[in-house]
């Protein structure tokens, strides 16, 4: 039993257990806050805050930042930012419990170097940052929570993320296998 879920030498919980608990967590989230889990919104809030600190007037006048800046309230004072704070704590707890917290290292596929991995991670991050804003959310906010609440856009984004990733998987197979 103990050996069953071994992955690269560490123990993961049964994915179905994780899924069921995550589904229940989403119900609890909706029950408490009437809104759903999300990650990229918090990143956006941080960027807006940064822009606001650097140049308050320019940020306010900016067509994109401006819509998130309200008088007397920091853009960081948002539900998602607090939630993401919790995500860090929770992941760290899990990392400690399952003994996965390590000294900084780069995880990469067998056929690429660490530097290459870092480069593609950066490009991937930029694409995600851009995509989340167009798609109104990331995998957690739009795809996972959106589909769970029967949102048309959420299901669409979920299918598109998976479809385009499968479509391009062959092109980037060197990175992972």
């Amino acid at each position, binding site marked *: 039993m103990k050996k069953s879920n071994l992955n690269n030498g560490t123990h993961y919980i049964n994915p179905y257990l994780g899924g069921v608990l995550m589904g229940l967590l989403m119900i609890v989230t909706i029950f408490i806050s009437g809104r759903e889990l999300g990650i990229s919104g918090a990143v956006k809030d941080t960027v807006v805050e940064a822009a606001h600190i650097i140049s308050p007037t320019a940020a306010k006048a900016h067509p994109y930042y401006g819509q998130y800046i309200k008088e007397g309230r920091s853009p960081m004072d948002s539900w998602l930012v607090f939630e993401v704070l919790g995500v860090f704590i929770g992941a760290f707890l899990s990392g400690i419990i399952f003994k996965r917290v*390590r000294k900084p290292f780069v995880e990469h596929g067998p056929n690429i170097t660490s530097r290459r991995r870092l480069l593609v991670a950066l490009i991937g991050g930029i694409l995600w940052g851009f995509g989340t804003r167009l798609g109104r959310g990331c995998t957690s906010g*739009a795809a996972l929570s959106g589909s769970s609440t029967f949102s048309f856009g959420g299901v669409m984004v979920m299918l598109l993320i998976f479809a*385009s990733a499968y479509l391009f998987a062959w092109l980037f197979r060197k990175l992972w296998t």
Partner: protein
Amino acid sequence: MGPLFPNGLISGDWNLVFAVLIGIAFGFLLEASGFSSSRNLAGVFYGYNFVVLRVFFTAVIVAMVGLLYFNYFGWLDLSKIFILPTFLPSMIVGGVVMGIGFIIGGFCPGTSFTAIVIGKLDALVFAVGLFIGIFFFAEVFPYIEGFYYKGNLGNATLTDVTGISAPWWAFGFTVIALVAFWVSWLIEKKVRKRIKDYKF
């Protein structure tokens, strides 16, 4: 009864406290399920590890079905919850861009954060990219503003768009997910034989 916050049953401050607690649970589940490894995540696209598919779809079907029951019991008023708005063209492009980002970067935003705290530098770089991406988006926003707001369907649900009632969607998703779980098992068994450096 619910949702508590929109119904004014808990204050905004408590809502934020719950946000942290919910975040902790979310982060824990993501990490514990193995989402902190980009190789696990990318595995779904090469057929050697379907953990993403399993966790993701189990969560979706449990939440979908649960919400319908809770709404029926009067515990949760589905008309008061946030429904992700739909902007057709920009969300289609966004989804495609995110898919490419997924296969290149090997993370999605939430999973990269869980990977950062267990010491993965690639996740940290990914997160930096995330900030740059959003900053870049904001910079080009004036040029794509029209596109960004095009095709607004509002807070449209599947039922609004297709006319098929929610239970049908929940049941359909459940059947598809369960079939996918079984099929993915067979695929995994085949593909894993070819992969050597990666322990399962």
